[in-house]
Structures are given as C-alpha cells and as structure tokens.
C-alpha cells in the first residue's frame, strides 16, 4: 500500500463520516416527529480498503404499522358509535336526578319514567275521582309523557343527521388523504428508479395510511416498483397507482323512516344494507352503523311505545251492541282517525300528543278521562260513565290495568312481540344502555390497544437520543483520528520529499 493510497482511504473516511453525521443529524432532528422511522447508514469497505456509505435504510416495521392502523380503525368505529349513543342515552338519563332515598318524585325524564308518573297520577285520580286537580294532574303527566317521546324522537333524528354530516366530512378527509398519498407514492416510485433517498416520502405514506385508518379500516400491499396500494378492510380498492373516487351525498334532514345515502367507491356502495362489501371499521363505519342501524332501531322502539300507548288508551263503543270502531282516546296523533296498527308505527313517537278534547289548555275537558268520550265528546256511544256518577272509577281502573297488561308489539323493533307497555319501555332503556355500555367498553379497549401498538411501533422504529449521541461521539472520534492520520501521512510525505 502506498502513501497515496492512504490519502485515498483518508478522503473516503471523511466522506463516509460526513454521510453518517448527516444520518445522525437527521435522526436527532426528528426525535419528536411522530411516525418518523429512524435511518441507518450502511457502511461498506470499498475496493481500495476505505469506507463508503453504500446506502441509507429506513427502520420500518410493516407488521406493527398494520397493527396500529387496524386498532386505530377499531377504536374510531367504537368511539363514533359511543358518542352517538351517549347523546341518545341522555334522553333516558335518569341517573342525575334520581336518588334511592328520596324516591318517587324524582324519576328523571325518560319515557319510561314519565309512564310511571302517568300511572301514579291515574292511581291518585282513582282515589279522588271527583277532584278536578287530580284530573289535571293526569293530563299534565300525559302531556309530559308525550313530549318526552317527542323529544327522544327528535334526539334520534338529530343523532342521525349529525352522523350523516360526519360521514360527509369523513369522506372529504378520505379523498384529500388519498390525493396527498398520490404525491407521496409518486415520489417513492420515481425516487427508487433514480436512486434518491425516499425515506421521508415513505414516512409520509405511512403517516397518511394511519390517518386514513382513522376514517376507514384499510390494508396495504407494496408492488415490486415500490408503489403501495390501499384497500378497505372489506377489499374495495381505494388506491392503486391512482386514487379512486369516494363519493357521498349528504341528506340534510333525516325524518323517522327516511334512510340516508350510501358511501360509494367508484360506484360500489361500501356502507348500508345494499353494499356487497361493507366496510367493517373506521369512523365512517361507526357513523354508518349509527345512522343506518342503531338509531333507527331505537326510533322504532320509541314508535312502538307511542303506538302501544295510543292503543292502550283507545276508546271502544260502549253501546249494548257495539257497532262503531275504536278511536284514539287520551293519546292521539294529529288527524288520526283510528288507533294505529302496531306494524306501521313509523313517525308516531314524533307526532304523539294529548288529545285536545281532554286538554284544558286547549279547551278540552279532563274529566273525560274518568267518564270516557275523549275521542268523540259529541257521541255518547263512547261514554263509559253512563250514569254520570261523580265517583265512577271503572274507566280509570281499566286504563291503569291497560298500562300493565300485556299487548303485542312488532318484533322487528328488537324487543320481542308481547309485553306490557311499562316492561317494553324499560326494555328499550335496557337495550340502549347495554349498547352504550358495550360501545364504550369496546372503545376504551381498542384505544388501549392502539396506544400499545403505537408505543411498540415508536420503540421499534423511533429515535433514541442517547443512541444517536453515542453514535455522534463515535463519529467525532473517527473524525479526530482520521485528521490525525492525515497529518501523520502528510508529515511522512514531507519527510520523504525533504530527503530527496
């Protein structure tokens, strides 16, 4: 080996050192960048014995990344459902105002509690059938019950509309992320062809995939040329060389029974009952489940309660030989001419009201609750108290027993086909709170998983400052030694030249 070769080695050492310092600086600079994957300089011996930085690799871990994105999706789904159900649960939230020691006066505002209040009011009226204040109390309990059903129904509508809006903004986010992904993916593909360092573009891609996973569950594959494709967790392509169009038309008003539009990718629906490949996770899936399944089911239950209520209080023809049909009594809906069929109750919870004929604030007569004839005050066929006795309690007793008597419900609302009105209302509260509890538990579980996976990913691919500092000290020493070597070789050359 000649002295000039030693010079070559020294200069390659300086170059390699500079390249490694570059990598260390890069790592230190990104110590707090979320999603940054640390870089490693691969140093090799070159043909004349010196050192070269052959390549810089990125410490990626696709398995962990996959786990992060899948648990993020799951957590987002449950969070979306839980948020919506919490809003719905507020309509039955009796916890804030109840106390086991203070008892009956504070029963909350759920339809179920209001039904219980109505039952109490009727029972009091039964004990004092001549008291007009007891009759008024029944009317006001009835109108509280009707308005609690109205407001629960309005809350369902509001939750569905909110979910619909959230779906729209989720779709916007997905489209914008897919566009950003296009740029990053192109940079990776062209960088690999030209041999440029693509680490930062790859970081960007990973970061976008994780963000996308918030909105919709995804899986990815990387082609031989480095291009990454994204699919939904149900297998619909979101990105393959170019982004696919995700489209959604928001529905501003979602009244009871109306269904919102589905989200489509290239025309294929990915949400809703008609989707061949419905998405399983991500916030979008959560909103869709809330809008299309959970909220409508609760609404159906409210409608069943309203329908059951109108039927329980309906009045029948009291003539010796009844010929007239039954009519809605204390509870009715505007313009109703007959009690509803339990298989067609859509919109009843929204429309139910106290019959104006019994409501003193609308010119009605509350004592008709005792005597009958609310449905048609002019027609004596519907009068139960035929003798006009002031203490007649037969009808009131009948109404009380109707509330606790078994009646049929539409099983499609998910709470069975036969139970009493009280039990049905309670079962509906149970159903809602159970769904809420489940979503909340699943949400915290998935969030914990996501946090754990993110930590594992951070440890596997992130930067440790101390390691980088140690590397830097090493490089500093190498630099000093190389400089020393250079001076030594230089003085050797000088000695040689002087001797000559």
């Amino acid at each position: 080996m000649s002295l000039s070769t030693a010079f070559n080695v020294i200069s390659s050492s300086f170059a390699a050192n500079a390249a490694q310092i570059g990598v260390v600086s890069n790592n230190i600079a990104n110590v707090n960048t979320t999603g940054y994957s640390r870089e490693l300089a691969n140093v090799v011996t070159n043909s004349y014995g010196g050192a070269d930085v052959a390549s810089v690799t990125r410490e990626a871990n696709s398995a962990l990344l996959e786990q992060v994105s899948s648990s993020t999706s799951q957590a987002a789904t449950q969070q979306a459902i839980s948020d919506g159900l919490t809003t719905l649960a507020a309509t039955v939230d009796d916890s804030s105002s109840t106390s086991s020691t203070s008892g009956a006066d504070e029963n909350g505002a759920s339809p179920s509690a209001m039904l219980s209040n109505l039952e109490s009011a009727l029972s009091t009226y039964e004990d004092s059938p001549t008291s007009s204040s007891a009759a008024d109390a029944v009317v006001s309990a009835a109108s509280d019950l009707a308005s609690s059903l109205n407001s629960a129904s309005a809350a369902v509508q509001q939750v569905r509309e909110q979910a619909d809006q959230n779906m729209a903004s989720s779709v916007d986010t997905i489209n914008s992320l897919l566009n950003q992904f296009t740029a990053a993916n192109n940079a990776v593909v062209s960088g690999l062809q030209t041999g440029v360092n693509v680490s930062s573009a790859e970081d960007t891609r990973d970061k976008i995939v994780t963000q996308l996973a918030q909105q919709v569950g995804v899986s990815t594959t990387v082609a031989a040329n480095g291009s990454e494709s994204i699919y939904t967790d149900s297998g619909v392509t979101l990105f393959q060389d170019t982004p696919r169009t995700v489209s959604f038309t928001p529905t501003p008003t979602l009244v009871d029974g109306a269904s919102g539009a589905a989200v489509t990718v290239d025309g294929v629906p990915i949400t809703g009952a008609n989707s061949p490949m419905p998405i399983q996770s991500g916030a979008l899936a959560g909103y869709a489940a809330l809008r299309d399944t959970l909220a409508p089911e609760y609404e159906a239950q409210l409608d069943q309660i309203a329908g059951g209520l109108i039927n329980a209080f309906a009045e029948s023809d009291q003539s010796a030989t009844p010929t007239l049909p039954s009519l809605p009594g204390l509870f009715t809906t505007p313009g109703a001419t007959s009690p509803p069929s339990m298989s067609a109750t859509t919109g009843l919870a929204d429309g139910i009201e106290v019959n104006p004929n019994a409501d003193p604030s609308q010119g009605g007569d509350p004592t008709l609750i005792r005597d009958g004839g609310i449905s048609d005050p002019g027609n004596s066929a519907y009068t139960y108290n035929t003798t006009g006795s002031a203490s007649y309690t037969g009808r009131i007793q009948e109404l009380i027993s109707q509330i606790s008597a078994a009646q049929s419900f539409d099983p499609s609302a998910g709470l069975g086909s036969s139970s009493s009105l009280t039990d049905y209302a309670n079962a509906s509260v149970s159903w809602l709170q159970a769904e809420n509890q489940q979503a909340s538990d699943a949400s915290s579980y998935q969030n914990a998983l996501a946090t754990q996976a993110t930590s594992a990913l951070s440890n596997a691919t992130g930067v440790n400052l101390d390691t980088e500092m140690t590397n830097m000290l090493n490089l500093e020493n190498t630099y000093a030694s190389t400089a020393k070597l250079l001076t030594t070789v230089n003085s050797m050359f000088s000695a040689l030249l002087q001797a000559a």
Partner: protein
Amino acid sequence: MTTVGANLVSTQYLANSLVGPVTQAQSQLTTAMTEESTGQYADLGLQLGDQSGYELSLKEQLNLLQTLTTGNSVVSTSLSTAQSALSAISSSAQTTLTDLATWTQGGDSGASLQNMGQSALQSLIASTNATSGGQYVFGGENSSVAPMADYYSTPTSAAKTAVDQAFQTEFGVLPSDPGAADISASDMQSFLSGPFAALFTGASWSADWSSASSVNTSAEIAPGQTATTSTNANQPGFQQLAEAYAMLSEFGGSQLSSDAQQAVATAASSLISEGLDSITDVQAELGSTQSTVTNANSSMSSQLTIMQQQIGNLDDVNQNTTAAQINSLTEQVQMAYELTSRLSQLNLAQYLPVP
C-alpha cells in the same frame, strides 16, 4: 456505528409514556370524586347497561307503592268519616229505642212520639249526608250529590208528599184530620206494613228519599288488590230507620186513637231494632275494609323498604372503596409527576462536556 438492539426505547415514547396514564388517572379521579360526593355511580346508565330497565322497573314499583300509600290515606279518612257517622246513627237509634220503651200509651197526645221521630230523622239525614274531602261518604259512586233529601224542607219534600198521599189513599183523610181518630189499630198496622212500608224500598226509595248510587266506590289499595271503599244510603238499615222515624214523626202527634198510636210505636221500635242490626252489619263491613287498608299499608311499607334497598344496591357506590380509590389515584398521579421530572434529566447531552 452502534447497533440498535431489541431493547431500544424511543425518546419520544419515553417522554410521553407517562402522559397517557396521568390523563387516565385524572379522569378516573373526577369520576371517583363525583361518586364520593353523591354516593352513586357517576354514569348510572353506563354502569348498569342492560340492568337499567330492571332498575327503572324497581323505581316504578316504588313510585306506585308510594302513590298507593298516599291514596290509601284518602280512603282511610273517608272510611273513618263513614264509621263515625254510622256510630252517630246507631246511638241516635239506640236513644230512640230507649225512649219508645219508656213511652206509655195514653200518657200524652202522642206529641212526644212525634218529637222523638222528628229529631231522630233529622239526625239520621244529617249523619247520612256526612262528607269527607267534599265527597258524600254514603253516596256510593254518586258522591257529588247529598244522598238523603231533607224530609222537612220547604217546599214540601217529595217524600212527605208521598207519605201524605199514601195515608189519604188508604183512609180518605189526612193524619191531622180529626176523622183519623176512627182508624183502628189493626187497620193502622196493615197500612204501616203495606202501602207505607212500600214507600221505603225499591223505586219509591230511590225516587223520594235517596240520591245515592247502589254501586259503591272501589279503589286499588295495594298492587292488584282492589277493595270496596264505601257504602251507600240504599242499605236496608238506612231505609228501616227512615221508615221508623217517619212513622213516629207523621203519626205520633196526629189525631189517631191511642190504640193506633200504640200500634205505630210498636211497629217503629221493631223497625228500629232491625235497622240497628243492619247498621251494625254495615259498620262491620267498613271495619273489615279499614283493617284491609291498614294491612295493605304495612305490607307496602315493608315492600318499600326492600325496594329502596334493592335500588340502593344497584345505584350506590361503596363510599369507603371510593375514598380508597381516590387516595391511590392521587398517589399514582403524584408518582407520575415525579417520574416525569426525573426522566427529563435522563439525557446523555446533560453529561457531555461542552467543548
């Protein structure tokens, strides 16, 4: 370059590792403090889940029991009013019976018989029209109208008119007519047990005397238990007493012969005895309802206690546990703060000499 082992911990993770637990502990701390101060779960619905409906049904039963207990006090008051009115009726009948026994035929013109009858009838009418909470207790379902019409009203009551008419039809004269003195005791007896007695039963009674409904009021006194909570003035006791008093009042001071007056007094005292028995029966019936209501109340009161305990089991947190939880959470947060400040010192750069 130093190789990176499996034990590497990223600096970012190290710095943030305690943020998550601290946030979680703080949120648990808020929940625990709410529960400690209210004694109940912070979010009951979330805590109970599908048990919520069960809890609601317990509260509804509790509500119902309380309403029924309150309602029973109304029932009890009206039953007590009825009982005391019946006692008054009974004691007035007893007095009249004693007075009749001491009355001797021919001792006076019969004016004392008349007074006896009149005052007893007035007292009967007043007692029968007793009210509780504005409701006539002997009205049956028709509790808004006084059950027994005033016999001595002006203009002449339908009942008095009917009595006069019946007498005139039978004997052709009015009781105040001197011609009435010719009526024999046996004729008088057959009149009293015939046309006169008919005025105090059936349709005549309802038309002239009573506005009460024969249907008694009933109310639910315990869940699923309905009791008849009143009686009515159409009971035989009321009819018999009214009949006896009316005959004394109408025919006692009249122009009747002393034999006929004796017949009236005899008929009246046997009717009063019968009436007393009937009234006692009615009192016994009401008394049994009263004890049913009392029993229902005491059974509901023990049910109420059980319900409240059950609701408490579902709703209430153990405050000792919550207090302990608050302590340990506070310690955890403090520990996390301590560690965070120590970890921030763990940095190689701190120990490197500044060149």
